[in-house]
């Protein structure tokens, strides 16, 4: 058992850590939100409420696992499984540290994009097979949002890919030894950040599940562990987007040598997770049409121009 990319030790520990971190984020988010709202948050179960997640899990396991009689059972059961699967698969290409990772793939970035695009099915199927108006509305919104923001996500990445000359996430990290890509690719970073929030439909872009408008959107009919899978899936998506931002724009595991690489990686990822939670605490939700027109009329031109300028500069430097 050694720390190599793709060794069983690596794979198992990544899976365990990622899932535990995603579950703990439920607690982290609630506490951080409450600090920003001058409250205390869950602090009763265990030290600082650390075991709150365990209590929540026990509760959710004992809930009735209810499939509505009017729902389409096939899609209803499939949907929460898809989101967990797709996001966990995306973690396969994330380079956590030298020697820690699942695969070292030459098409890492593309694989990540493919998985992100498959993630849309979970939301669609969940909403469509629930056979419920709110769920359908949520699914419609989610699909349009995810399909559109995938485009900007992909294009905003291409600047980084062009600079590093590789689709391999590990090589992208290594190419940042002389400076993080956030400086030359700041526009790309901002667009990727926004598209990432929209992809994982976190607040402020949680339009598919906007509680105040359409109940809980696409997972209105879900309860018990199936709802829990959507819930944990959302947090897994949060971890994934934060890791990807770290890898693509903030030099992944690179950092001064007094801390091991994996610690640098975790610190950066947690900074971004905290930032996402801060967004949730501070920024109100835009309207659906505002989101769409903002994406297509502002983000798309900017990201295309960014790609063009980057390519031109790279060409002229050669």
């Amino acid at each position, binding site marked *: 058992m050694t720390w190599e990319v793709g060794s069983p030790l690596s794979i198992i520990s990544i899976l365990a850590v990622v899932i535990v971190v995603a579950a703990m984020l439920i607690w982290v988010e609630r506490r951080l939100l*409450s*600090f*920003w*709202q*001058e*409250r*205390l948050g869950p602090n009763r179960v265990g030290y600082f409420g650390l075991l709150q997640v365990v209590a929540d899990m026990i509760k959710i396991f004992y809930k009735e696992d209810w499939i509505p009689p009017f729902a389409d059972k096939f899609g209803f059961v499939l949907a929460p499984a898809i989101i967990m699967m797709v996001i966990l698969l995306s973690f396969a290409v994330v380079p956590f540290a030298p020697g820690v990772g699942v695969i070292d793939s030459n098409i890492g970035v593309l694989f990540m994009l493919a998985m992100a695009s498959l993630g849309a099915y979970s939301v669609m199927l969940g909403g469509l097979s629930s056979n419920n108006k709110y769920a359908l509305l949520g699914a419609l919104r989610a699909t349009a949002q995810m399909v559109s923001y995938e485009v900007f996500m992909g294009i905003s990445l291409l600047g980084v890919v062009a600079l590093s000359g590789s689709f391999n996430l590990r090589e992208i990290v290594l190419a940042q030894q002389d400076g993080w890509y956030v400086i030359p690719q700041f526009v790309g970073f901002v667009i990727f950040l926004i598209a990432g929030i929209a992809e994982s439909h976190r607040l402020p872009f949680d339009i598919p599940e906007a509680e105040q408008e359409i109940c809980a959107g696409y997972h209105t009919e879900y309860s018990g562990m199936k709802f829990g899978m959507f819930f944990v899936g959302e947090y897994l998506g949060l971890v994934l987007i934060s890791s990807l931002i770290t890898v693509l724009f903030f030099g992944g595991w690179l950092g001064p040598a007094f801390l091991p690489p994996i610690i640098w990686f975790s610190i950066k990822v947690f900074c971004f997770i905290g930032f996402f939670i*801060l*967004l949730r*605490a*501070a*920024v109100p939700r835009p309207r659906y049409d505002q989101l769409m027109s903002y994406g297509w009329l502002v983000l798309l031109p900017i990201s295309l121009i960014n790609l063009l300028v980057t390519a031109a500069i790279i060409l002229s430097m050669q």
Partner: protein
Amino acid sequence: MFTLFKDTLVSQVVTLWKVFAKILVKADTVQYPEEQPYMFPRWRGRIILSRDPDGEERCVACNLCAVACPVDCIALQKTEDEEGRWYPEFFRINFSRCIMCGFCEEACPTNAIQLTPDFEMAEYVRQDMVWEKEDLLISGTGKYHDYSFYNVCGKKIGGKDKGEAQNEAVPVNVRSLLP
């Protein structure tokens, strides 16, 4: 262009910063069971039946509170002792229905029924929410210390005849011609 920039991007960043800075602000939360909050004396909580300064039950079973109660959760039955004092034979409040509105306190002519700042009334068994007179009756005067209904009313009871109450004139002898 500049105003658009200022209204959108800058204001978002300022919002983010202001919310982030809240992390240093002390939380408003009161850690309840360990740290008891200060309850104001006029808080409308658990209902009691008080006694007058002499230690007798204040309630005269007039049923006004039961009538005033919007959810009809008070039940009582009047009885009388040999001296002529009225008092309730039983007095029952169903706290699982009570909405702590305080109307009973407003309606009571004798200040007998009073709401107190105690709110910890949860029970595991619903039947335990029904309180009888023994549970309601306290040995003190509650919020009004000097008031005693029989001292101001004209009713004749043992040890107090007509006309002996405060501010009460001696009854006019209608059979006499003297002014």
